[in-house]
Protein backbone atom coordinates (compact mmCIF):
# COMPACT_ATOMS: atom_id res chain seq x y z
CA UNK A 1 0.00 0.00 0.00
CA UNK A 2 1.40 3.35 -1.10
CA UNK A 3 2.27 5.46 1.93
CA UNK A 4 3.94 8.83 2.12
CA UNK A 5 6.93 9.47 4.40
CA UNK A 6 6.38 12.86 5.99
CA UNK A 7 7.77 14.97 8.82
CA UNK A 8 5.00 16.21 11.08
CA UNK A 9 4.41 17.00 14.70
CA UNK A 10 2.16 14.65 16.65
CA UNK A 11 -0.63 17.21 16.57
CA UNK A 12 -0.35 17.59 12.81
CA UNK A 13 -0.25 13.82 12.33
CA UNK A 14 -3.46 13.36 14.30
CA UNK A 15 -5.09 16.26 12.47
CA UNK A 16 -4.35 14.43 9.20
CA UNK A 17 -5.71 11.17 10.60
CA UNK A 18 -8.93 12.86 11.69
CA UNK A 19 -9.19 14.69 8.35
CA UNK A 20 -8.84 11.42 6.47
CA UNK A 21 -11.71 9.95 8.51
CA UNK A 22 -13.96 12.75 7.19
CA UNK A 23 -15.97 13.54 10.32
CA UNK A 24 -19.29 15.34 9.93
CA UNK A 25 -18.82 17.46 13.02
CA UNK A 26 -15.94 18.75 15.12
CA UNK A 27 -16.64 20.66 18.31
CA UNK A 28 -13.71 21.87 20.32
CA UNK A 29 -12.22 24.47 22.59
CA UNK A 30 -8.51 25.25 22.64
CA UNK A 31 -6.09 24.24 25.38
CA UNK A 32 -2.34 23.82 25.35
CA UNK A 33 -0.97 21.41 24.09
CA UNK A 34 -3.95 20.23 22.06
CA UNK A 35 -4.68 23.55 20.34
CA UNK A 36 -2.46 23.09 17.31
CA UNK A 37 -4.18 19.83 16.47
CA UNK A 38 -7.54 21.54 16.07
CA UNK A 39 -5.85 24.55 14.40
CA UNK A 40 -4.50 22.21 11.74
CA UNK A 41 -7.85 20.47 11.40
CA UNK A 42 -9.66 23.82 11.12
CA UNK A 43 -7.18 24.80 8.41
CA UNK A 44 -8.19 21.70 6.43
CA UNK A 45 -11.85 22.67 6.81
CA UNK A 46 -11.20 26.28 5.78
CA UNK A 47 -9.28 25.08 2.72
CA UNK A 48 -12.13 22.80 1.71
CA UNK A 49 -10.04 19.63 2.19
CA UNK A 50 -12.66 18.13 4.46
CA UNK A 51 -16.34 18.92 4.78
CA UNK A 52 -16.76 19.09 8.55
CA UNK A 53 -19.12 21.32 10.51
CA UNK A 54 -16.84 23.13 12.97
CA UNK A 55 -18.59 24.13 16.17
CA UNK A 56 -16.34 26.58 18.02
CA UNK A 57 -17.80 26.33 21.49
CA UNK A 58 -17.21 28.35 24.64
CA UNK A 59 -15.72 25.60 26.81
CA UNK A 60 -14.72 21.96 26.82
CA UNK A 61 -17.92 21.05 28.67
CA UNK A 62 -19.75 22.47 25.67
CA UNK A 63 -17.34 20.77 23.27
CA UNK A 64 -18.23 17.35 24.60
CA UNK A 65 -21.91 18.29 24.92
CA UNK A 66 -22.05 19.33 21.27
CA UNK A 67 -20.14 16.19 20.33
CA UNK A 68 -22.67 14.06 22.21
CA UNK A 69 -25.59 15.77 20.52
CA UNK A 70 -24.07 15.47 17.06
CA UNK A 71 -23.07 11.86 17.59
CA UNK A 72 -26.51 10.92 18.94
CA UNK A 73 -27.95 12.55 15.83
CA UNK A 74 -25.93 10.04 13.77
CA UNK A 75 -22.80 12.03 12.79
CA UNK A 76 -19.18 10.99 12.92
CA UNK A 77 -17.72 13.38 15.48
CA UNK A 78 -14.26 14.39 16.65
CA UNK A 79 -12.93 16.56 19.40
CA UNK A 80 -9.68 17.15 21.27
CA UNK A 81 -8.55 18.26 24.67
CA UNK A 82 -5.97 18.04 27.47
CA UNK A 83 -5.66 18.40 31.23
CA UNK A 84 -8.08 20.96 32.68
CA UNK A 85 -10.12 20.88 29.48
CA UNK A 86 -10.70 17.18 30.00
CA UNK A 87 -11.50 17.83 33.64
CA UNK A 88 -14.04 20.45 32.63
CA UNK A 89 -15.86 18.04 30.31
CA UNK A 90 -15.75 15.24 32.87
CA UNK A 91 -19.51 15.08 33.45
CA UNK A 92 -20.23 14.71 29.74
CA UNK A 93 -17.34 12.29 29.16
CA UNK A 94 -19.22 9.73 31.27
CA UNK A 95 -22.41 10.49 29.38
CA UNK A 96 -20.73 10.01 26.00
CA UNK A 97 -19.75 6.50 27.02
CA UNK A 98 -23.06 5.61 28.66
CA UNK A 99 -24.94 6.77 25.57
CA UNK A 100 -22.60 4.48 23.58
CA UNK A 101 -21.50 7.22 21.19
CA UNK A 102 -18.44 6.53 19.00
CA UNK A 103 -16.84 9.96 19.46
CA UNK A 104 -13.10 10.02 18.68
CA UNK A 105 -10.99 12.39 20.71
CA UNK A 106 -7.36 13.38 20.71
CA UNK A 107 -6.31 13.48 24.35
CA UNK A 108 -2.96 15.25 24.42
CA UNK A 109 -1.75 14.24 27.84
CA UNK A 110 -0.98 17.16 30.12
CA UNK A 111 -0.79 17.49 33.89
CA UNK A 112 -3.89 18.51 35.80
CA UNK A 113 -3.77 21.69 37.85
CA UNK A 114 -2.66 22.66 40.56
CA UNK A 115 -0.26 24.12 40.36
CA UNK A 116 -0.99 25.10 36.78
CA UNK A 117 1.30 23.10 34.55
CA UNK A 118 1.14 22.84 30.79
CA UNK A 119 3.55 19.93 30.43
CA UNK A 120 3.12 16.23 29.96
CA UNK A 121 2.00 13.67 32.44
CA UNK A 122 -0.87 11.17 32.34
CA UNK A 123 -3.00 12.54 35.17
CA UNK A 124 -5.67 13.79 32.79
CA UNK A 125 -6.58 10.60 30.96
CA UNK A 126 -5.93 8.49 34.07
CA UNK A 127 -8.37 10.69 35.96
CA UNK A 128 -11.07 9.56 33.56
CA UNK A 129 -10.15 5.90 33.43
CA UNK A 130 -13.47 4.80 34.92
CA UNK A 131 -15.60 6.74 32.44
CA UNK A 132 -16.10 3.89 29.99
CA UNK A 133 -13.98 5.14 27.10
CA UNK A 134 -11.41 3.20 25.12
CA UNK A 135 -7.88 4.48 25.83
CA UNK A 136 -5.15 3.98 23.23
CA UNK A 137 -1.69 5.26 24.15
CA UNK A 138 0.84 6.33 21.52
CA UNK A 139 4.63 6.43 21.83
CA UNK A 140 5.31 8.74 18.88
CA UNK A 141 3.71 10.58 15.95
CA UNK A 142 3.44 7.40 13.87
CA UNK A 143 1.49 5.62 16.60
CA UNK A 144 -0.66 8.70 17.22
CA UNK A 145 -1.53 8.85 13.51
CA UNK A 146 -2.19 5.10 13.29
CA UNK A 147 -4.30 5.03 16.46
CA UNK A 148 -6.14 8.10 15.16
CA UNK A 149 -7.11 6.32 11.92
CA UNK A 150 -8.02 3.06 13.68
CA UNK A 151 -10.08 4.75 16.40
CA UNK A 152 -13.10 5.25 14.12
CA UNK A 153 -13.28 1.58 13.12
CA UNK A 154 -12.96 0.54 16.75
CA UNK A 155 -15.48 2.98 18.18
CA UNK A 156 -18.06 2.54 15.45
CA UNK A 157 -17.93 -1.26 15.40
CA UNK A 158 -21.52 -2.43 16.06
CA UNK A 159 -20.42 -4.58 18.99
CA UNK A 160 -18.44 -1.75 20.59
CA UNK A 161 -20.16 1.64 20.15
CA UNK A 162 -17.90 3.37 22.65
CA UNK A 163 -15.92 6.60 22.42
CA UNK A 164 -12.13 6.39 22.03
CA UNK A 165 -9.43 8.72 23.27
CA UNK A 166 -6.15 8.63 21.36
CA UNK A 167 -3.58 9.61 23.97
CA UNK A 168 -0.16 11.05 23.18
CA UNK A 169 2.27 13.04 25.29
CA UNK A 170 1.86 16.81 25.32
CA UNK A 171 4.77 18.77 23.85
CA UNK A 172 7.02 15.71 23.69
CA UNK A 173 4.97 14.17 20.88
CA UNK A 174 2.38 16.81 20.10
CA UNK A 175 4.88 19.55 19.29
CA UNK A 176 8.00 17.79 18.07
CA UNK A 177 8.44 16.95 14.43
CA UNK A 178 8.92 13.28 13.75
CA UNK A 179 8.92 11.20 10.63
CA UNK A 180 5.99 8.91 9.92
CA UNK A 181 4.25 7.10 7.12
CA UNK A 182 0.77 8.30 6.18
CA UNK A 183 -1.83 6.56 4.07
CA UNK A 184 -3.16 8.49 1.13
CA UNK A 185 -6.62 9.98 1.57
CA UNK A 186 -8.41 7.39 -0.55
CA UNK A 187 -6.89 4.37 1.20
CA UNK A 188 -7.56 5.87 4.63
CA UNK A 189 -11.14 6.66 3.66
CA UNK A 190 -11.65 3.10 2.41
CA UNK A 191 -10.24 1.65 5.62
CA UNK A 192 -12.28 3.91 7.89
CA UNK A 193 -15.49 3.63 5.86
CA UNK A 194 -18.77 5.31 6.72
CA UNK A 195 -20.54 5.45 10.04
CA UNK A 196 -23.76 3.44 9.98
CA UNK A 197 -25.40 3.97 13.35
CA UNK A 198 -28.03 1.54 14.59
CA UNK A 199 -29.86 4.42 16.27
CA UNK A 200 -29.80 8.10 15.29
CA UNK A 201 -31.92 11.02 16.38
CA UNK A 202 -32.09 12.26 12.78
CA UNK A 203 -33.68 8.96 11.74
CA UNK A 204 -37.22 10.29 12.03
CA UNK A 205 -38.72 7.04 10.77
CA UNK A 206 -37.51 5.35 13.97
CA UNK A 207 -37.90 7.95 16.72
CA UNK A 208 -35.94 7.39 19.92
CA UNK A 209 -35.45 9.10 23.24
CA UNK A 210 -31.79 9.48 24.19
CA UNK A 211 -30.57 9.98 27.75
CA UNK A 212 -33.73 9.35 29.82
CA UNK A 213 -33.98 8.99 33.59
CA UNK A 214 -33.28 5.69 35.32
CA UNK A 215 -34.45 4.96 38.85
CA UNK A 216 -32.97 2.38 41.17
CA UNK A 217 -34.64 -0.39 39.21
CA UNK A 218 -32.76 0.04 35.90
CA UNK A 219 -29.55 2.08 36.23
CA UNK A 220 -27.49 -0.93 37.22
CA UNK A 221 -28.67 -3.01 34.23
CA UNK A 222 -27.73 -0.19 31.87
CA UNK A 223 -24.26 -0.07 33.39
CA UNK A 224 -23.85 -3.81 32.83
CA UNK A 225 -24.31 -3.38 29.10
CA UNK A 226 -21.56 -0.74 29.16
CA UNK A 227 -19.21 -3.11 31.00
CA UNK A 228 -19.89 -5.81 28.44
CA UNK A 229 -19.19 -3.41 25.55
CA UNK A 230 -15.76 -2.62 27.02
CA UNK A 231 -15.00 -6.33 27.21
CA UNK A 232 -16.12 -6.91 23.63
CA UNK A 233 -13.85 -4.05 22.54
CA UNK A 234 -10.72 -5.99 23.47
CA UNK A 235 -10.76 -8.56 20.63
CA UNK A 236 -12.23 -6.00 18.23
CA UNK A 237 -9.34 -3.58 18.81
CA UNK A 238 -7.09 -6.48 17.91
CA UNK A 239 -9.06 -7.35 14.76
CA UNK A 240 -9.02 -3.75 13.53
CA UNK A 241 -5.31 -3.56 14.28
CA UNK A 242 -4.68 -6.77 12.32
CA UNK A 243 -6.54 -5.36 9.33
CA UNK A 244 -4.60 -2.11 9.63
CA UNK A 245 -1.40 -4.14 9.81
CA UNK A 246 -2.27 -5.81 6.49
CA UNK A 247 -2.85 -2.40 4.95
CA UNK A 248 0.18 -0.55 6.28
CA UNK A 249 2.71 -3.14 7.45
CA UNK A 250 2.39 -1.83 11.02
CA UNK A 251 0.68 -4.38 13.22
CA UNK A 252 -0.17 -3.11 16.69
CA UNK A 253 -1.01 -5.32 19.64
CA UNK A 254 -2.48 -4.32 22.99
CA UNK A 255 1.08 -3.81 24.18
CA UNK A 256 4.52 -3.81 22.58
CA UNK A 257 7.03 -6.33 23.92
CA UNK A 258 10.58 -5.04 23.59
CA UNK A 259 13.33 -7.59 24.29
CA UNK A 260 10.91 -9.60 26.39
CA UNK A 261 11.58 -13.08 24.93
CA UNK A 262 14.36 -13.96 27.35
CA UNK A 263 13.82 -11.13 29.84
CA UNK A 264 14.08 -11.89 33.56
CA UNK A 265 12.96 -8.48 34.70
CA UNK A 266 11.01 -5.80 32.95
CA UNK A 267 9.61 -2.31 32.95
CA UNK A 268 5.97 -1.57 32.20
CA UNK A 269 5.37 1.91 30.81
CA UNK A 270 3.04 4.02 28.65
CA UNK A 271 3.73 6.70 26.05
CA UNK A 272 6.83 8.48 24.84
CA UNK A 273 8.96 7.51 27.85
CA UNK A 274 9.10 4.04 26.33
CA UNK A 275 11.55 5.39 23.77
CA UNK A 276 13.99 6.63 26.39
CA UNK A 277 13.63 3.36 28.28
CA UNK A 278 14.33 1.22 25.22
CA UNK A 279 17.59 3.10 24.66
CA UNK A 280 18.70 2.33 28.23
CA UNK A 281 17.52 -1.28 27.97
CA UNK A 282 19.80 -1.69 24.96
CA UNK A 283 22.75 -0.44 27.04
CA UNK A 284 22.02 -2.75 29.95
CA UNK A 285 21.54 -5.68 27.61
CA UNK A 286 25.12 -5.04 26.45
CA UNK A 287 26.12 -5.49 30.09
CA UNK A 288 24.28 -8.79 30.26
CA UNK A 289 21.24 -7.68 32.24
CA UNK A 290 18.21 -9.49 30.84
CA UNK A 291 15.77 -6.63 31.00
CA UNK A 292 12.80 -6.02 28.73
CA UNK A 293 9.99 -3.52 28.25
CA UNK A 294 6.23 -3.81 28.03
CA UNK A 295 4.74 -0.67 26.51
CA UNK A 296 1.00 -0.69 27.03
CA UNK A 297 -1.05 0.67 24.12
CA UNK A 298 -4.57 -0.37 25.15
CA UNK A 299 -5.10 0.88 28.70
CA UNK A 300 -8.88 0.66 28.53
CA UNK A 301 -10.18 -1.96 28.25
CA UNK A 302 -7.27 -3.24 30.31
CA UNK A 303 -5.96 -6.47 28.74
CA UNK A 304 -5.40 -8.04 32.14
CA UNK A 305 -5.07 -11.67 31.03
CA UNK A 306 -2.65 -10.93 28.20
CA UNK A 307 -0.55 -8.71 30.43
CA UNK A 308 -0.51 -11.19 33.30
CA UNK A 309 0.51 -13.95 30.86
CA UNK A 310 3.36 -11.89 29.46
CA UNK A 311 4.65 -10.87 32.89
CA UNK A 312 4.14 -14.01 34.92
CA UNK A 313 7.61 -15.38 34.15
CA UNK A 314 9.43 -12.29 35.42
CA UNK A 315 11.63 -12.20 38.51
CA UNK A 316 10.97 -8.50 39.08
CA UNK A 317 8.67 -5.97 37.49
CA UNK A 318 8.88 -2.19 37.56
CA UNK A 319 5.69 -0.35 36.69
CA UNK A 320 6.27 3.29 35.82
CA UNK A 321 3.36 5.64 36.32
CA UNK A 322 3.36 9.13 34.87
CA UNK A 323 0.54 10.05 37.25
CA UNK A 324 -0.25 9.59 40.91
CA UNK A 325 -3.40 8.28 42.48
CA UNK A 326 -3.34 10.28 45.71
CA UNK A 327 -4.24 8.16 48.65
CA UNK A 328 -4.08 4.97 46.63
CA UNK A 329 -1.47 2.28 47.00
CA UNK A 330 0.60 3.14 43.94
CA UNK A 331 -0.24 4.72 40.60
CA UNK A 332 -2.98 3.62 38.20
CA UNK A 333 -0.90 1.35 35.97
CA UNK A 334 0.79 -0.29 38.98
CA UNK A 335 -2.61 -1.04 40.51
CA UNK A 336 -3.96 -2.60 37.32
CA UNK A 337 -0.84 -4.67 36.62
CA UNK A 338 -0.58 -5.98 40.15
CA UNK A 339 -4.24 -6.86 40.24
CA UNK A 340 -3.94 -8.69 36.93
CA UNK A 341 -0.93 -10.67 38.22
CA UNK A 342 -2.70 -11.62 41.43
CA UNK A 343 -4.98 -13.83 39.30
CA UNK A 344 -1.97 -15.95 38.37
CA UNK A 345 0.40 -17.85 40.60
CA UNK A 346 3.08 -15.25 39.92
CA UNK A 347 4.26 -13.53 43.07
CA UNK A 348 7.28 -11.81 41.55
CA UNK A 349 7.95 -8.49 43.22
CA UNK A 350 6.11 -5.65 41.46
CA UNK A 351 7.42 -2.19 42.28
CA UNK A 352 6.11 1.22 41.31
CA UNK A 353 8.02 4.31 40.27
CA UNK A 354 5.97 7.45 39.90
CA UNK A 355 7.83 9.75 37.54
CA UNK A 356 7.58 12.71 35.21
CA UNK A 357 4.81 14.60 36.98
CA UNK A 358 4.26 18.05 35.51
CA UNK A 359 6.53 17.22 32.61
CA UNK A 360 9.58 16.57 34.82
CA UNK A 361 12.01 15.22 32.26
CA UNK A 362 12.37 11.45 32.28
CA UNK A 363 15.92 10.89 31.16
CA UNK A 364 18.38 8.07 30.62
CA UNK A 365 19.67 8.35 34.22
CA UNK A 366 16.20 7.71 35.60
CA UNK A 367 15.68 4.78 33.27
CA UNK A 368 19.05 3.39 34.34
CA UNK A 369 18.14 3.75 38.00
CA UNK A 370 14.96 1.72 37.47
CA UNK A 371 16.77 -1.01 35.56
CA UNK A 372 19.46 -1.29 38.22
CA UNK A 373 16.79 -1.42 40.91
CA UNK A 374 14.79 -4.23 39.38
CA UNK A 375 17.95 -6.11 38.63
CA UNK A 376 18.80 -5.95 42.33
CA UNK A 377 15.25 -6.91 43.30
CA UNK A 378 15.41 -9.87 40.94
CA UNK A 379 18.55 -10.97 42.78
CA UNK A 380 16.71 -10.85 46.11
CA UNK A 381 17.29 -7.35 47.40
CA UNK A 382 14.39 -5.75 49.27
CA UNK A 383 13.25 -2.30 48.28
CA UNK A 384 10.34 0.05 48.91
CA UNK A 385 7.35 -0.92 46.80
CA UNK A 386 6.24 2.60 45.92
CA UNK A 387 8.96 5.00 44.81
CA UNK A 388 9.27 8.45 43.34
CA UNK A 389 11.65 9.03 40.46
CA UNK A 390 13.45 12.27 39.63
CA UNK A 391 12.05 14.48 42.39
CA UNK A 392 13.95 16.56 44.98
CA UNK A 393 12.93 15.41 48.44
Amino acid at each position, binding site marked *: MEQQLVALTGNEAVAYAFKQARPHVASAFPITPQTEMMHKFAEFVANGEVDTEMILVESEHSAMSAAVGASAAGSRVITATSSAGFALMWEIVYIAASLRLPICMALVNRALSGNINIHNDHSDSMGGRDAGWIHLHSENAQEAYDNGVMSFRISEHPDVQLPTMVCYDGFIISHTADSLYMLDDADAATFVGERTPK*YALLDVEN*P*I*TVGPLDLTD*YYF*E*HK*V*SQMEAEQRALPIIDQVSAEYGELTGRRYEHFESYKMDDAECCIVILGSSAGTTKAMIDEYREKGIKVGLMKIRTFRPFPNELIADALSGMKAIAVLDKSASFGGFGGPVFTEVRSALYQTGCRAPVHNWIYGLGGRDYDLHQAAHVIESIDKIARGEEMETINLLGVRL
Partner: protein
Amino acid sequence: MSLKKASELAEAGIITEPGNAAEYKTGDWRTYIPRFVEENCTHCLYCWIYCPDTAIEVDNSGDKPRMTGINFDHCKGCGICATECPTVKKGPDKAALHMDLEEK
Protein backbone atom coordinates in the same frame (compact mmCIF):
# COMPACT_ATOMS: atom_id res chain seq x y z
CA MET B 1 -45.04 -5.42 34.61
CA SER B 2 -41.94 -7.49 35.36
CA LEU B 3 -38.51 -5.88 35.30
CA LYS B 4 -36.31 -6.55 32.28
CA LYS B 5 -32.83 -8.05 32.46
CA ALA B 6 -29.72 -6.22 31.24
CA SER B 7 -29.64 -8.41 28.15
CA GLU B 8 -33.21 -7.44 27.26
CA LEU B 9 -32.65 -3.67 27.28
CA ALA B 10 -32.00 -1.48 24.26
CA GLU B 11 -28.39 -0.34 24.27
CA ALA B 12 -27.36 2.97 25.77
CA GLY B 13 -30.56 3.17 27.79
CA ILE B 14 -32.44 4.63 24.86
CA ILE B 15 -36.19 4.37 24.60
CA THR B 16 -37.39 3.02 21.28
CA GLU B 17 -41.17 3.21 21.75
CA PRO B 18 -42.43 6.76 21.39
CA GLY B 19 -44.92 7.88 24.03
CA ASN B 20 -44.45 4.86 26.27
CA ALA B 21 -44.77 7.01 29.40
CA ALA B 22 -48.51 6.29 29.03
CA GLU B 23 -47.82 2.70 30.18
CA TYR B 24 -46.29 3.81 33.46
CA LYS B 25 -49.27 4.06 35.80
CA THR B 26 -48.63 6.62 38.48
CA GLY B 27 -52.15 6.64 39.92
CA ASP B 28 -50.98 4.63 42.90
CA TRP B 29 -48.92 7.62 44.04
CA ARG B 30 -52.08 9.42 45.21
CA THR B 31 -53.00 10.43 48.73
CA TYR B 32 -55.90 12.71 47.72
CA ILE B 33 -58.28 11.87 44.89
CA PRO B 34 -60.36 14.34 42.81
CA ARG B 35 -64.14 13.86 42.75
CA PHE B 36 -65.89 15.23 39.65
CA VAL B 37 -69.43 16.53 39.99
CA GLU B 38 -70.54 16.81 36.38
CA GLU B 39 -73.75 18.80 36.91
CA ASN B 40 -71.65 21.68 38.37
CA CYS B 41 -69.15 21.72 35.52
CA THR B 42 -69.13 24.61 33.01
CA HIS B 43 -66.71 22.76 30.68
CA CYS B 44 -64.26 25.67 30.68
CA LEU B 45 -61.42 23.06 30.48
CA TYR B 46 -59.17 24.96 32.92
CA CYS B 47 -58.62 21.65 34.69
CA TRP B 48 -57.38 20.09 31.45
CA ILE B 49 -55.10 23.07 30.73
CA TYR B 50 -53.58 23.10 34.22
CA CYS B 51 -53.26 19.36 34.82
CA PRO B 52 -49.52 18.67 34.84
CA ASP B 53 -50.14 15.19 33.51
CA THR B 54 -52.79 13.91 31.09
CA ALA B 55 -55.33 13.01 33.73
CA ILE B 56 -58.34 15.06 32.61
CA GLU B 57 -60.55 13.19 30.13
CA VAL B 58 -62.22 15.28 27.46
CA ASP B 59 -64.81 14.30 24.87
CA ASN B 60 -64.15 16.15 21.60
CA SER B 61 -66.90 14.56 19.53
CA GLY B 62 -69.55 17.31 19.87
CA ASP B 63 -69.65 20.99 18.83
CA LYS B 64 -67.70 21.93 21.93
CA PRO B 65 -65.28 19.82 24.00
CA ARG B 66 -66.66 18.51 27.30
CA MET B 67 -64.82 17.46 30.45
CA THR B 68 -65.95 13.89 31.15
CA GLY B 69 -63.84 12.71 34.05
CA ILE B 70 -60.45 11.81 35.49
CA ASN B 71 -57.92 9.26 34.21
CA PHE B 72 -57.16 7.59 37.54
CA ASP B 73 -54.24 5.59 36.04
CA HIS B 74 -52.22 8.79 35.81
CA CYS B 75 -53.83 11.22 38.27
CA LYS B 76 -51.35 11.71 41.12
CA GLY B 77 -53.79 13.70 43.23
CA CYS B 78 -51.89 17.01 43.06
CA GLY B 79 -55.16 18.97 43.34
CA ILE B 80 -54.23 21.64 40.80
CA CYS B 81 -57.46 20.98 38.86
CA ALA B 82 -59.56 21.58 41.98
CA THR B 83 -57.56 24.73 42.78
CA GLU B 84 -57.96 26.21 39.29
CA CYS B 85 -61.60 25.18 38.73
CA PRO B 86 -63.62 28.46 38.62
CA THR B 87 -66.73 26.80 40.16
CA VAL B 88 -64.99 26.12 43.45
CA LYS B 89 -65.36 29.76 44.62
CA LYS B 90 -69.14 29.39 44.40
CA GLY B 91 -69.08 27.03 47.40
CA PRO B 92 -68.89 23.26 48.02
CA ASP B 93 -72.44 22.59 46.67
CA LYS B 94 -71.63 24.20 43.35
CA ALA B 95 -68.03 23.01 42.94
CA ALA B 96 -67.35 20.64 40.05
CA LEU B 97 -64.11 19.29 41.58
CA HIS B 98 -63.41 18.25 45.16
CA MET B 99 -60.28 16.66 46.68
CA ASP B 100 -61.04 13.79 49.06
CA LEU B 101 -58.66 11.68 51.11
CA GLU B 102 -58.49 8.47 49.13
CA GLU B 103 -59.66 5.28 50.87
CA LYS B 104 -56.98 2.60 50.42
